[in-house]
């Protein structure tokens, strides 16, 4: 009977680690715990003499599934934000977000970016910036669901009211248009006053923005400069 | 001269794993060792490898002594140093150097920089050199 004690002790580890796994909130922590569960499960299977099952658990259950899940979690828990590439508009400044934000904390886009990162970080999401050559390409990327959100300056979005200039401090300088309802809910009220968040319904294109053809013809004088 | 050390290593692993010296098994082992792809990087010199093997054998008792020392006298201090890589080392030998440094429990290589330096992390007993990065000149083994 004494030799059964260690069997019971080892088998008890399996529900213990499984319980730890299902109570994890952060997906990356859950991945690590999944690895621990795989190691313990392989031990239990080997203990019961199932050498092949133990080997499969170690190879597939631990190694392959963790690697695949790590890549899946990494690429799905992410908000893709479309921004304009630096070549097209070098004066407006927002296009250099990708290059500038890491170094220059005093740049006007920095508080918006850090607020975005912070509020996304609560949901374990990451921010990825994708550059596009023109505002037209940006709008197209939003409607074809290439990106979740696009980042515009007021110059491109508030064409109808030319009197409002981005120079005034209180008015929003940047506009973030998102097509994902949940992202809108997450980010609502989290951004600094220089940025404005807008929900765009991807199915009806006559929402907040003008049709891209008109916008492009209007913009052409500024963007090409 | 087709990387016989490489073949030898594979055959050693094969025979240790299978523990079977029948002709069929030897044939399979040799065939697998030849069929696996080989890297075409710089050939290691046998003398260097023997030297490194000897160093590994020496490192094992040193590692145990260091472990016992760490157990009986606590080493609460953490220090980072930079150490220079010995000249004329192939990639495999650099790997073995890193292995030797990391194998001993008091030292861990943090990073191998391409310009020929290791970043080494130490635990120490004394309360001096408070966490700053020290430069070390000559090549030395811990």
């Amino acid at each position, binding site marked *: 009977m*004494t*030799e059964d*004690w*260690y069997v019971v*002790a*080892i088998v008890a*580890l399996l529900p*213990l*680690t499984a319980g*730890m796994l299902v109570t994890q909130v952060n997906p*990356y*922590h859950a*991945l*690590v*715990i999944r*690895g*621990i569960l795989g*190691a*313990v499960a*392989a*031990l239990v299977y*080997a*203990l019961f*003499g199932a*050498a092949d099952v*133990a*080997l499969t658990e*170690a*190879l597939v259950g*631990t*190694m392959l599934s*963790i*690697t695949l899940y*790590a*890549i899946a979690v*990494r690429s799905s828990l992410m908000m893709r934000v479309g921004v304009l590439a630096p070549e097209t508009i070098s004066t407006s400044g927002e296009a250099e977000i990708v290059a500038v934000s890491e170094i220059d904390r005093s740049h006007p886009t920095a508080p918006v970016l850090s607020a975005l990162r912070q509020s996304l970080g609560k949901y374990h999401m*990451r*921010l*990825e910036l994708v550059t596009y050559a023109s505002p037209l390409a940006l709008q197209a990327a939003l409607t074809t669901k290439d990106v979740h959100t696009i980042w515009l300056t007021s110059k491109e979005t508030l064409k109808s009211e030319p009197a409002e200039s981005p120079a005034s401090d209180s008015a929003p300088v940047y506009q973030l248009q998102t097509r994902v309802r949940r992202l809108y809910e997450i980010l609502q009220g989290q951004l600094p006053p220089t940025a404005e968040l807008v929900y765009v319904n991807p199915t009806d294109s006559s929402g907040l923005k003008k049709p891209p053809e008109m916008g492009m013809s209007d913009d052409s004088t500024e963007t090409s400069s | 001269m087709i990387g016989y050390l490489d073949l030898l290593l594979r055959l050693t692993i094969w025979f240790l*794993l299978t523990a079977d010296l029948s002709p069929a098994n030897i044939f399979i082992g040799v065939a697998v060792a030849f069929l696996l792809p080989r890297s075409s990087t710089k050939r290691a010199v046998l003398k260097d490898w023997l030297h490194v093997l000897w160093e590994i054998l020496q490192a094992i008792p040193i590692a145990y002594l260091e472990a016992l020392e760490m157990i009986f006298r606590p080493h609460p201090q953490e220090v980072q140093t930079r150490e220079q890589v010995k000249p004329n080392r192939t990639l495999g030998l650099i790997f073995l150097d890193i292995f030797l440094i990391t194998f001993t429990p008091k030292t861990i290589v943090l990073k191998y920089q391409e310009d020929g330096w290791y970043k080494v992390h130490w635990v120490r007993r004394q309360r001096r050199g408070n966490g700053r990065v020290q430069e070390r000149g000559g090549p030395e083994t811990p």
Partner: protein
Amino acid sequence: MMNAILITMILALLLPIYEAWQDDNIWQKMLAFASIATKTSILILVVAVLRDDWTIGVVGVLILSVGNAALMLLAHVLRRLNEL
């Protein structure tokens, strides 16, 4: 005697499991995972010797070398994650 050693080893295995549960830093969890991966495969080897069942022993040796590979891959993915 072997049973006593085995029970002590299981107790030692509980320490990193507790650590993985209570620490919120991802790298501390990874350390616990590394510790558990090694300890479980050594336990498999001990059980194999205890029962004199050598198929289990082969599995233990294979897991010893494979479990760590998964850890390294995961460590690199997590490192790339922190860079962004």
